[in-house]
């Protein structure tokens, strides 16, 4: 689950440089504002690796894709509504 290309998304959240719990809070805010959107979060916070999947379980979202950021700085997380399915592969 990695690649230099990013999957299709409705909104990009570049939270690189932000430490926990701020990237997850940004994700939660955007989810509240745009409940049906496919959100792509970029984060270089080590805690996000665990906290984004944990938050998705708590808030019933699907973590559809995880990979490296194209420029190599941090990771990318595609978070979508529970019913929708993300691209399994790019």
């Amino acid at each position: 689950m990695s690649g230099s290309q990013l999957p299709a998304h409705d909104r990009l959240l570049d939270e690189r440089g932000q430490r926990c719990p701020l990237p997850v809070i940004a994700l939660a805010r955007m989810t509240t504002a745009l409940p049906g959107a496919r959100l792509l979060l970029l984060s270089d916070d080590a805690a996000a690796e665990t906290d984004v999947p944990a938050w998705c379980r708590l808030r019933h979202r699907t973590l559809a894709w995880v990979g490296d950021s194209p420029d190599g700085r941090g990771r990318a997380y595609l978070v979508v509504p529970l019913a929708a399915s993300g691209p399994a592969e790019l």
Partner: protein
Amino acid sequence: MGHYGRVVAHASQTSSAAPDPVSGARSRTPGGYLDAASTAPLHPAAREALLTALDDGWGDPSRRYHQARRARLLLDAARESVAARIGARPDEVSFTGSGTQAVGLGVGGLVRGRDRVGRRVLSSAVEHSSVLHAAQAAVGDEARTVAVDELGRVDLGALRVAVAEPGVVLVALQTANHEVGTRQPVAAAAELCAAHGVPLLVDAAQSAGRDPLPEGWSVLTASSHKWGGPAGVGVLAVRTGVRWRSTSPEGALEQGRVPGFVDVPAVVAAAAALEAVERERPRESARLAALVDRLRARVPELVPDAVVLGDPRDRLPHLVTFSFLYVDGEALLADLDRAGFAVSSGSSCVADSLQPSHVLAAMGALTHGNLRVSLPAGVAADDVDRFLEVLPDVVARVRATLGTAGL
């Protein structure tokens, strides 16, 4: 190390010398100290034994004059006492300079003792960092971890497969997890290890003096300051017949297992503390387990979006961990410290490394807003109730500064 950032206990906090309303016992610990899993306050029995032994036990126990014999007698008595309480023979027990040193010597000696078999060391993914670091130092890339479930309990199926591979020189498994309290299936792991002739190192740091210790270990390690003895004393027990070879180039003392001069007065105090806490344990464990049950039940009722971690029943009696969604762990600890409570956190913002706790990560648990409460023996029930009164407002304040209402 440093996965568990600490908040220094409030020296200014009023000591709760009031009798405990439940047990009637007077609390020995400063009010609000709820971080016993980091270190326990010195037990009064240890203080008394230490002061006596400083006068009587300073001699070199390996020499042949009367001061030496006095130290030797004290050391032998301490060894017999500790051995009886951990289920070992006295000649199997060595005292080290710390729990971490005991782990390092235990792992290193087992690896060296089996160097013809191979180099693979298996540890659960949630072992204390001292175990993971010792394995890494001893065998590098051959240090492998075995996954755990969401409660933090090692996956026995994965262990069964891993231990059957060739070249495994030891398995390391803690008695119970130091961050979330979940007990590990040591007896079942011991059976798997025995079936393949692989020694099992059991880190009992969080259980000694708190919880019954399991059998089936080849090497057992523990740490005095976790049970109310002084810091600077660890226990390394090596079962008779286990292939263990010293890694110390120096002429080692303590049954040939530990380099350096043994601190006899501290060892005497450690043994006195263990005797005392073991005497009190049946009653005290039940009381602390009930207080932890109260915390586990009440916190999610009082605080929205609180996750209770670890096994609710098969767990250490005195320890519980929570993660609060949208909470900054560092701010949470600082606010609780201001309110007079010393607790710790596995959140990355609290760690020197800025990495989240490897235990929480291995469990897949929310790592931010993490809070570990560990009750010292003799804690006043009133402390737990006051903590429950203060916590909801503290969490709400931290969340308010981050503007997370309605998320």
